[in-house]
């Protein structure tokens, strides 16, 4: 902390985090401001210019309906990323609550909650999401609910184990001995000690969730044609993959790049939150 901002961001360990931040800023720029700069209609078709390769005019080429792929990737970003953030946020909130309650209460509460979690985890995630979507019907909100319904169980299991490990640590009896109430112990001791790992896992799962959302859209659930959602674009372009690979590759790269940046960001945040790792980072 005293060593200045420079060593914090540019030591070897931090450099990955710095790249993560830079990438995330780029993504945020394109997602939030991009649609205002490249404000062409992403659904406007132009059948005179079908499947054009990338060029100065169409950076990522055009698709089978003559729509500019770059405009579509940009204007679809908020859909794909927004869904992923909402899913991870809701999933983590439920997972943290369930996990802490289970780990802290123990006994029958723990057993019941964890059996529910195991039932959730025993379904293949995408099948369960399909079942939820089948019941609720299509739509972005339903897509979020379906994916969050799968995700929370992962977080709950992690949080429970971390909670138990904090409960068994030797500073917990010390915290009780100084007169902390149970609620204070949960919020002042357990939560701060587990949140770093939860954030790492949550940000790491943003990538897979973007891809899972894309899969659902690819299967025709979630976002609907002609929405520029990335999964849907990949789905739409798959028939032209030999003649015009850019239709699928561009949104694919966007999804992978986003997942990659969030992963770097997640690990970096985890390190920053934990003071024990600061020292190591400075030694590197």
């Amino acid at each position, binding site marked *: 902390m005293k060593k200045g901002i420079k060593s914090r961001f540019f030591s070897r360990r931090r450099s990955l985090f710095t790249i993560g931040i830079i990438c995330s800023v780029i993504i945020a720029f394109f997602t939030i401001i991009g649609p205002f700069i490249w404000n062409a209609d992403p659904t406007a078709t132009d059948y005179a210019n079908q499947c054009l390769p990338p060029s100065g005019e169409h950076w990522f080429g055009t698709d089978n309906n003559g729509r500019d792929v770059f405009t579509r990737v940009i204007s679809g970003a908020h859909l794909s990323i927004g869904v992923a953030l909402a899913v991870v946020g809701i999933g983590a909130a439920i997972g943290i609550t369930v996990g802490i309650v289970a780990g802290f209460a123990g006994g029958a509460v723990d057993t019941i909650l964890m059996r529910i979690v195991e039932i959730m985890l025993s379904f293949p995630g995408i099948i369960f999401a399909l079942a939820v979507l089948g019941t609720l019907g299509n739509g972005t909100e339903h897509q979020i609910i379906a994916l969050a319904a799968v995700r929370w169980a992962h977080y709950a299991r992690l949080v429970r184990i971390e909670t138990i490990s904090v409960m068994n640590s030797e500073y917990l*009896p*010390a*915290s*009780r001995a100084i007169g902390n109430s149970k609620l204070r112990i949960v919020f002042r001791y357990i939560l701060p000690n587990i949140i770093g790992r939860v954030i790492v896992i949550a940000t790491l799962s943003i990538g897979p969730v973007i891809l899972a959302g894309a899969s659902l859209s690819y299967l025709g659930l979630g976002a609907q044609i002609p929405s520029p959602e990335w999964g849907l674009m990949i789905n739409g372009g798959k028939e032209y993959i030999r003649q015009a690979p850019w239709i699928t590759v561009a949104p694919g790269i966007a999804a992978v790049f986003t997942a990659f940046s969030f992963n770097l960001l997640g690990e970096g945040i985890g390190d920053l939150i934990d003071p024990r790792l600061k020292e190591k980072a400075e030694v590197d």
Partner: protein
Amino acid sequence: MSGEPVIKTEDLSVEFQVGNGSVKALHDINVSIYDGEVLCLLGESGSGKSVFGNSILRLHPDNALVKGKIFFNGQEITALSDKEFLPLRGAQLAWVPQSAASSLNPLKSIGKQVDEVYRLHVENDKKKARENTIDLFRLLGLPRLPELADDYPHELSGGMKQRVLVAMGTSAFPKFIVVDEPTKGLDAVRKREVIKRIGHMQKTHKSTMLLITHDVAVAESLANDIGVMYAGEIVEYGSKDEVLNSPKHPYTRGLINALPQNGFHAIKGFSPSASDMPTGCKFNPRCPECTQECIDGHPKLIISESEKHVARCYHA
């Protein structure tokens, strides 16, 4: 020794439920600790010293069954509900845990952790809490003040962490402190430093203290009274000088003979397992003076005003 004792226990026993049976870790402890005095419980690992300390603060796991009564300033604290007991912890009754290395929250600076106790129990004032913390750190001889308070536990040595824990225990000026193995895992130099500082702090604050240790030297430098524990019982009780200079119980004599300066004469055998106690006097299998009487009967220990130096032994 005058007036009402700060802590008094009546027939305090602790059992742990293990599987289908139970293991008795503490048997009928009757002690009184008076204002400003230090009672030292001396004994080997597993003799029930820490269990006794934890009983006072109610820090046992759920499978523990505590019987008997504990009085704090005349009030029966064993009769309080958990909710009524909570405000006593840290404010009136404090506990300095053993294993200093891992007893601090790794995510908070040590200053904040000590502040927290003050702000929880005395006054929720950041500045005053920090002043109090720094004063305590100074009293305990911690270096690099006040910057040290912003350090995290992993940046401190074992002896420093131990002193931070003592500061945490005393930050709200509790009436009574349980100090559990303050020298565990410290080297000889640090040990002396920590002991000196605890003694200094105890005298400055006039705290009443229960000191738990297996180290005769620690007991010698800090205690007023000593209780020697063996297999969950107090086997000898008396003032420091009486117990250390003219021990009555063969176990106490064995402990003193085992000291390096007395030639390392180890007591033969091992202390019995809590689930497999010998009949009669629990020390009889290892005792050089064991007679038939010791196998048939279990000697009693009664501490009274008139006869303070007592031993749980037929031959004392």
